[in-house]
């Protein structure tokens, strides 16, 4: 980034801002910048901001937007941060190049966040004293309120269209193709001609003003590229819901909780689209909004016991409530799928912020000795894939399976690989003995390990008039499901469960390894939504001559390759988004590795981890002479 032409457009509108001061250098970057919108919750900015991001995407330039919002419906601050990256980096970068400051409440903090040479776009209807601006940034004022008040009389319209007007102005300043935006409007308001016309009008208001009064383009700009390919743009919760549809889930029970509610809502939407029998008009699904999380997992347990594929979606506090049932499902061996969209904990910690802090709570959920399967999707593509896979695994293993996503993937739209479904892929229903098999005299012992993999056979209620019925309970039983309090029966049972867990390690999605360009004794282990920031950090590190082999975990239990990876390196960084290094604890506990080999890299303030953070943390360890002040940023 270098300082070229100074930007002067603002000086007409904000007299005196740059008056006597030297004009600061400006950030110059095409298709590589971060823009952040500071809005007020409930002001209707969300759809305008999304439109902005999508327009850039349609120009073939990868974007990754993030909603940053408080636990509140109206009035409080909300932000939408868009990273534009032709190189395709989708993690948060850190730092802001342009701020669209629409919220007076957060003004000071928003202004402070700008990188030197950055751009501040604001509503200049009411003049601001020069002291509220930083001398090292460029200020672009536009009287948005005044413009809207002059054109619209309805107060709601005045508010709503302000957002579209600034998108119009930005499209001029950043050189976003206006045709692209109008086309997006056309798609959004298909069949609603009046809405379409008024939105286009607002867009033009913004564009016309900017052309006439503001001096564009800025140093940060968008230029058409061809870097999006066949990628799709969707949020992880919708993707997980679609995975449940494709995976054959027929029963969903849930209780509203941020950030997971939209999983159930999207499931409802997709089911209404794909799962209504055209011949009868009847639904091939059942969705119940339960009275609480205990009831929702209870319904899933009941449906799973009775042979339907069922899931619930929840977040931390919901997991806490579900643990008694999770223990029952584990011990009684009932298929259950739980999509846990993690948020900041403990308790109601930071309900609208992201974390990866439920790993231990889920891996060992419930009292007694328990271990559960966790899947760790990195993006919406994998949310889809892992949700479908979880339903298969739950049936195959007859046990709870957790899909551990988080707010960052769940509630933000991500550019990702298109969803894939192999033609001919079928459901793995696991070991369910049929009436014919029972009739043929196959020995049925509900909890007998006949195949040596720890997974017993089950029968579904109603299968056969005289054979195969058994009594399910959370208390110990013998291999034929008969109540027992005998020690050996208990030991047989829990040892078999452990064997089953080892079987699971081969069935779950295997880790993905990326070897560094040069042989190295350094490794890094990461998982889930950390993925895009990690990919970028690895590239940056490599450019600086720090070579690190990387392993992305995709599931727990850990396959042997994880222990082998750790053994092959002197130092392995474990990057995760929680305070207590929960994944590291799992690794130490399950693989009995020397904890000294595993170096913690922890990010847990509720914002998504950035490439800068990871790079600095690793550099600090590898080259301790680097500036320590930087490492804390």
């Amino acid at each position, binding site marked *: 980034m270098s300082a070229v032409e100074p930007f002067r457009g603002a000086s007409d509108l904000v007299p005196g801002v740059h008056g006597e001061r030297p004009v600061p250098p400006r950030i110059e970057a095409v298709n590589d910048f971060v823009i952040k919108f500071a809005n007020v919750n409930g002001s209707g900015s969300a759809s305008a901001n999304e439109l902005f991001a999508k327009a850039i995407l349609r120009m073939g330039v990868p974007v990754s937007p993030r909603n940053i919002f408080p636990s509140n419906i109206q009035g409080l601050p909300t932000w939408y941060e868009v990273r534009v990256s032709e190189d395709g980096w989708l993690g948060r970068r850190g730092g802001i190049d342009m701020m669209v400051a629409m919220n007076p409440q957060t003004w000071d903090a928003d202004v402070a966040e700008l990188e030197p040479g950055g751009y501040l776009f604001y509503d200049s209807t009411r003049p601001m004293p020069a002291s509220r601006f930083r001398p090292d940034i460029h200020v672009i004022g536009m009287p948005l309120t005044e413009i809207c008040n002059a054109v619209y009389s309805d107060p709601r319209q005045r508010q709503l269209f302000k957002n579209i007007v600034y998108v119009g102005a930005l499209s001029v300043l950043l050189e976003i193709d206006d045709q692209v935006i109008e086309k997006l409007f056309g798609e959004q308001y298909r069949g609603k001609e009046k809405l379409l016309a008024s939105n286009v009008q607002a867009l033009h208001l913004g564009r016309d003003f900017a052309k006439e009064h503001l001096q564009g383009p800025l140093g940060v700009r968008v230029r058409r590229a061809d870097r*999006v390919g*066949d*990628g*799709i*743009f*969707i949020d992880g919760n919708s993707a997980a819901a*679609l995975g449940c549809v*494709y995976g*054959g889930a*027929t*029963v969903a*029970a849930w209780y509203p909780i941020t950030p997971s509610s939209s999983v159930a809502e999207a499931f409802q939407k997709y089911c209404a689209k*794909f*799962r209504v*029998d055209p011949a*009868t008009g*009847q*639904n*091939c*699904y*059942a969705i*119940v909004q339960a009275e*609480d999380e*205990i*009831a929702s997992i*209870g*319904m899933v347990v*009941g*449906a799973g016991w*009775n*042979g*339907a594929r*069922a899931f619930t979606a929840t977040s931390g506090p919901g997991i806490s409530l579900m643990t*008694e*049932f999770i223990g*029952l499902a584990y011990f009684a061996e009932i298929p259950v799928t739980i999509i846990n969209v993690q948020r900041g904990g403990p308790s109601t910690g930071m309900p609208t912020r992201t974390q990866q802090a439920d790993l231990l709570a889920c891996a060992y959920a419930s009292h007694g000795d328990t271990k559960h399967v966790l899947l760790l999707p990195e993006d919406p593509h994998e949310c889809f894939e892992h949700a479908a896979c979880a339903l298969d695994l739950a049936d195959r293993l007859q046990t709870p399976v957790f899909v551990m996503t988080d707010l960052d993937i769940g509630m933000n739209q991500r550019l990702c690989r*298109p*969803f894939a*479904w192999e*033609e001919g892929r*079928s*459901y793995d229903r696991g070991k369910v003995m049929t009436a014919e098999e029972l009739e043929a005299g196959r020995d049925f012992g509900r909890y007998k390990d006949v195949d040596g993999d720890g997974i017993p056979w089950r029968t*579904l*209620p*109603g*299968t*056969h*008039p*005289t054979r195969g*019925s*058994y*009594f*399910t*309970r*959370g*208390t110990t039983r013998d291999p034929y499901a*008969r*109540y*027992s309090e*005998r020690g050996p029966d208990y030991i047989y049972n829990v040892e078999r469960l452990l064997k089953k867990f080892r079987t699971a390690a081969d069935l779950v999605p295997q880790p993905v390894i990326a070897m560094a360009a040069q042989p190295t004794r350094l490794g890094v282990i990461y998982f889930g939504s950390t993925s895009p920031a990690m990919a970028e950090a690895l590239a940056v590190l490599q450019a600086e001559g720090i070579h690190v082999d990387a392993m992305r975990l995709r599931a727990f239990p850990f396959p042997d390759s994880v222990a082998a990876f750790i053994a092959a390196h002197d130092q392995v960084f474990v990057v995760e988004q929680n305070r207590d290094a929960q994944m590291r604890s799992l690794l130490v506990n399950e693989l009995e590795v020397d904890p000294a080999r595993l170096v913690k890299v922890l990010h847990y303030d509720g914002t998504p981890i950035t490439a800068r953070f990871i790079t600095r943390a690793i550099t600090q360890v590898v080259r301790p002479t680097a500036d320590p002040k930087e490492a804390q940023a």
Partner: protein
Amino acid sequence: MTYIAKPPLRHPTLEKNRVGYTRRDYEGKISTLCAGCGHDSISAAIIQACWELDIEPHRVAKLSGIGCSSKTPDYFLGASHGFNTVHGRMPSVLTGANLANRDLLYLGVSGDGDSASIGLGQFAHAMRRGVRMAYIVENNGVYGLTKGQFSATADQGSKSKKGVINSDSPVDLVGIALQLGATYVARGFSGNKQQLVPLVKGAIQHGGAAFIDVISPCVAFNNHPGSTKSYDYVREHNESVSRIDFIAPGEEITADYGPGEVVDVRQHDGTFLRLRRLHADYDATNREQAMAHVQQHQSRGEVVTGLLYVDPLATDLHMALNTSARPLNALGLAQLCPGRPALDKLNASLR
């Protein structure tokens, strides 16, 4: 080991029902409950009801929570799948099971601790959701399995075995069921099998959420003078509003009582409930009246029994959700997976 198998002896002359089963085929393991426990009488009533209804035992799914009462599903219908879930949460598990396969009959068995304390919420919501099942609470006013603590249905002022007086007012599950929209509400007494068997039959055949509160004395902890859930107290204060007979389709309907005393209530499935009114003015199809009646008599210390309320045309959760007639657990890839072309289209719409 408290598991005792029953010897599989069968007497060749045992009477068979229309589906070819003897009463023995409806039995389960030998009960491990205390001799004289009211719960065993309820198990016997369930066995009798299912046999008389010609139900194939394996078409029933029996679910329960935790407690002495919740153990009982092991002691009847040995050929059915049973599920002893967690304390107080049988209703949600049953709801899920029912959603998965609407073709089975669902029997939910619970205790008053199970349903009125820890599980009060689930009980209430299953009723208001209209989950099709026969929900039977074996109500003894105490926690039997944990040895004699007061439960939430213990009457205020009643005395525990150790002489402690209960100061909390009781939860009336019948009142709650009526209030929340259960479409079949009855109260029985484990000591009155003649009344209980038809009540259970009616509940099993009912098209919606059916609830029976069965007073079931606990001989170990709550059968002493001063307890309002003892055999003696209930025998003396039992106030029956009606006696019902259950008439299956095809059975002859005879009128052997004068008009005004007997009503035959026709249900969805063609069965009839014959209500012999013991209180001439009691109308079991009027929810408000039933609520008022139960409360009035309760305040006098009476235990009102019989079929208290029925909506003969009740529907259930599946109807509300418009779920496929074919059970959800029987649907395959073809009905469930939208397939590759739909996914490709969806991918295209996300660009």
